[in-house]
């Protein structure tokens, strides 16, 4: 029966593909991504953190590594001329964009704007982003470009084409390593690390890991108090400010007496 023959061929092809993938997987040494540090603590002297991320991949492959924060809704204001003066003229909400986005590739071409329909890079973010507000559909691209520029200004978005370093880790095994400086604007929460392994322009494997960012010490106490006990926090702020002001006044007055 012709139908049976077609089905047999399809199943055979699928089995062959699985076999191919099966032979590829052991070469990646378990497919782990090592993220250091695994927990980022934001204390009073926090000024950003250098993340070190590495993973093994089969020889003759390329890799792309991304670090992404949770997807949020960004509230933006757009400017336009109003009676010949530049004013905020309306709100634009950009939904489903990550709080932080960094990507690094072993081959610079994989992060170039015309790299193709890969699940990384700014083009992928734009495909997933949703725009709401006083905009025309033709403006989506312009608005997204400016949005990325603003994020890059705050060091929250960055692409490193060719920034993923490849070294030999053994026979038929390569190691990819990248370092990202995450700015102090990092928000507490979970961040997701993804590594795509690419061979001949096709993705053969995707691996994931994550790390957490937490407030600790004084920042944690103050943040919790400001969020949950606003009036008490406000009164404390006023009393503290008044006391420091009066104390300085007193100190200076005494110094003045001494002269």
């Amino acid at each position, binding site marked *: 029966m012709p139908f049976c023959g077609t089905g047999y061929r399809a199943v055979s092809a699928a089995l062959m593909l699985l076999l191919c993938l099966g032979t590829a997987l052991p070469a990646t040494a378990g497919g782990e991504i090592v993220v250091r540090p695994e927990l980022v603590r934001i*204390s009073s002297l926090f000024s950003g953190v250098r993340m070190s991320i590495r993973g093994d991949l089969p020889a003759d492959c390329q890799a792309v590594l991304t670090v992404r924060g949770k997807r949020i809704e960004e509230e933006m204001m757009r400017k336009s001329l109003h009676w010949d003066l530049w004013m905020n003229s309306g709100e634009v909400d950009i939904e489903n964009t990550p709080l932080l986005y960094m990507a690094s590739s072993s081959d610079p071409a994989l992060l170039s704007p015309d790299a193709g329909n890969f699940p990384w890079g700014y083009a992928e973010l734009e495909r997933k982003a949703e725009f709401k507000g006083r905009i025309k559909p033709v403006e989506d691209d312009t608005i997204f470009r400016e949005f990325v520029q603003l994020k890059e200004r705050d060091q929250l978005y960055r692409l490193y084409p060719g920034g993923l370093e490849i070294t030999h880790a053994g026979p038929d095994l390569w190691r990819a390593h990248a370092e990202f400086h995450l700015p102090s*604007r990092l928000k507490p929460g979970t961040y997701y690390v993804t590594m795509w392994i690419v061979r001949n322009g096709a993705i053969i494997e995707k691996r994931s890991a994550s790390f957490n960012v937490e*407030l600790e010490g004084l920042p944690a106490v103050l943040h919790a108090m400001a969020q949950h006990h606003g009036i008490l926090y*406000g009164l404390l702020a006023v009393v503290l400010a*008044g006391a420091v002001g009066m104390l300085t006044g007193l100190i200076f007055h005494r110094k003045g007496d001494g002269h």
Partner: protein
Amino acid sequence: MNWDFYLPIAGHSLNIFMLLGLGAGVGFLSGLTGVGGGFLMTPLLIMSGIPPTIAAASDSNQIVAATASGSFAHHRMGNVDLKMGLILLAGGFLGGTVGVQIIRFLRTLGDADFFIKITYVVMLSLVGSYMLVEGVRSHIREAGSGYPLEHVPHPSRFRRFISTLPWQTHFAKSDVTLSPIVPFLVGAFVGMLAAIMGLGGGFIMVPMMCYVLKMPMHVVVGTNLFQEVFVCANVTVMQAATNHTVDVMLALLLLLGSSIGAQLGARFSYRLRSNHLKILLACIVLAVMVKILLGLILTPHYMLDFKGGE
């Protein structure tokens, strides 16, 4: 050595010495001229990368220290008219409530941003130009005649009208006699504008006290600082309770610098002549006005900004 300090509400780190220096500089001007310095500090904080809503709210918090420190210094020197200050404060609370309602109404129409900016430019232009012209004119006359302009008797129609108002009261510290209705209305007017513009309103209050209430400049400085302590304390608590935008660590670092700067400014103000203080304040006000005006006229670098970016 890492000199960055994490600000838990602003959500990022800034250099400690930059914040202390910023506080000291603005505090010095505050003690010198009697204005709270909000119209200077908030834009400077925004330029440093602090989100505008947090910059404005935390600035109100630090002004409490600068004004408490400055008014304490002026009180010791006998420059605070408590009676006048309390009447201005009462008017300020009423005006502030009206101003908040006006802004709420304009926000529903979508014109609040435009209205606020235009109010800034108009008020700063009027106040700055008037003070500059008046200060320079007084300086020239004093230099020519040898006695201060304030002693030249020249009652205007407005002043004659003020003298006909009921409950004429003598304010000993300011050495003026007028109806309490006048400082109450002045307080209400400034409070309303301050609420619209989101500031303590010192740069409007000081000229009003000077030219409408005819208070001597050194009492104006001390009394304005006294009433601003309460205005800014109220704003701080309201912002903390409703918007959670007060960063106490940011305010503390700024106020450590500003309270010392305010003391030095208050001492230095005594060495300056009244007209020189007026000219200095006028120049600062006009410089801020030009900065805002350029922001309105010049094509912005980005056509998009995060909400609250103004």
